[in-house]
């Protein structure tokens, strides 16, 4: 159980990136966070990952506050961020240094099998396409079977076809051991396709605006009527969130700083 309570992050330059955000994420839930740029969604993810410390409030995993990166929380970035000097298998085993070599190799091999690129275990990162590199990044994050998997716009740099392919694949991976997944994205369709719950954030300062439970049966049809209706609804909410942020700045210039 992941609990986020009155989480606030103010950066050194005074920017209020996140303002009293509270969220609860159930075990095994897939939560998507959508919002325009500057709404604090990436900051939120970095706080959950323990890469940054909150100004106020806390993130708790099973009651324990997260203050630094933890093995129970995995993170996949927008870029694969593979170490170019390690083979794909070595990259996947990057977080397994505490295990004996044989165990590392076996776990990395299993994870690569899961993400479907076992044949590339000995390849260098530069030899992989963007989609395959991101699969390797998924394998690296999942190889330790973290309770929570954080994904920071993981497919936004990929072409549409590869992106859909990896979205399907991510659901398959979820079926492996049902980790909690928190996905930050600016792609509403991606959020609706994957998530049990979509949280819409609004910018300046970053706040939770509303949330939607798609409640659609899986596999979801991106072209289905209900899917499109939900998409329109979320688009409207996002539009309004920006209008409200602009209006808020107009009436209260201090908030902009």
């Amino acid at each position, binding site marked *: 159980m992941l609990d986020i309570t009155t989480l606030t992050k103010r950066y050194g330059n005074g920017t209020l990136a996140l303002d009293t955000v509270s969220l609860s994420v159930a075990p095994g839930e897939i939560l998507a966070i959508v919002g325009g740029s500057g709404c604090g969604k990436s900051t939120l993810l970095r706080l959950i990952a323990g890469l940054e410390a909150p100004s106020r409030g806390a993130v708790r995993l099973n009651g324990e506050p997260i203050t630094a990166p933890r093995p129970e929380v995995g993170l996949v970035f927008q870029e694969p961020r593979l*170490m170019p000097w390690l083979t794909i298998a070595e990259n996947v085993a990057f977080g397994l240094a505490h295990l004996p070599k044989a165990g590392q190799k076996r776990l990395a091999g299993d994870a690569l099998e899961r993400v479907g690129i076992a044949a590339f275990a000995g390849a260098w990162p530069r030899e992989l396409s963007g989609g395959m590199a991101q699969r390797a990044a998924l394998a690296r994050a999942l190889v330790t079977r973290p309770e929570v998997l954080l994904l920071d716009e993981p497919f936004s740099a990929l072409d549409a076809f590869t992106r859909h392919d990896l979205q399907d694949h991510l659901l398959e991976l979820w079926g492996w051991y049902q980790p909690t997944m928190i996905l930050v994205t600016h792609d509403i369709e991606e959020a609706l396709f994957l998530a049990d719950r979509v949280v819409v954030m609004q910018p300046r300062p970053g706040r939770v605006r509303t949330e939607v439970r798609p409640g659609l049966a899986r596999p979801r049809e991106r072209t289905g009527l209900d899917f499109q209706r939900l998409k329109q609804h979320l688009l409207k909410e996002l539009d309004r969130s920006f209008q409200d942020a602009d209006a808020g700045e107009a009436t209260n210039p201090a908030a902009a700083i």
Partner: protein
Amino acid sequence: MTGSPTASAAALAQPVSTAPASAGAAAPAAGRPARHARRLLGFVVPAALALALEAAVAGGLYDGRLLPPPSAVLATLWELAAAGELFEHVAITLWRVGLGFLFGTLAGTVLGAVTGTFGLARALLDPMLQALRAIPSIAWVPLFILWFGIFETSKVTLIAVGVFFPVYLSTAAAILDVDRKLVEVGRIYRLSAFQLVRRVLLPATLPSYVVALRSGLGLGWMFVVAAEFMGASKGLGFLLTDGQMTGNPTIILASIVTFAVLGKITDGLLAGATRPFLRWQDSLGNSRR
């Protein structure tokens, strides 16, 4: 004897493309014969000039006193080698370059790593080192002779100073250039400071560090000549001044040829020793033809 050093030097000059060729990879060899032919073209003009000189001297058109023909240079080299003299000169010069390279590299690496890593150290030390770098290193010679005498210490110090700057600059720059995003991956996996250095910073900086070592070594060879000009009784640099004093250009050219061969060999050894660690690099072998 005379053929083998040149042959190995030529092989070391293009080590990257010769290795896969010997591995028997037939597929990517399409552009290779052409590339070999292109490389041989580079020998045409110098060989023609050498042959012309040789013929001119043999035919009595030129006496070859100031510019001796290749055969005379090779004969002198052979004589020096047979007398064991060449070996002595080479050994002491190699020893000086080796020591200077060692100390210069150590100092450059440590200071470069410190200023590259810590902003405070950079603010404190970098301006001073940059100012010192602006001094032509030969200008230190009188001071070093006063401080360290005319024997080995002043020579090795001068070489070390020459090696220090390229190593220092590249090490600091390489550390500053490390992708912060990869460092963050290290943080996610809770690496300690030491593990971060060993598993992320070191491999990430290695390519530029190797380049730094190679340019440092090149400068080491440059500075050993200057160092041996200042009162040496042995060494290839001494051989140069000796040739000048006795009015014997053959000796000078023999020494120059030896410098070239040694410089090429040591650079090739350094490149070869570090290549296994850089196999992952995208550019290696592609960018260097």
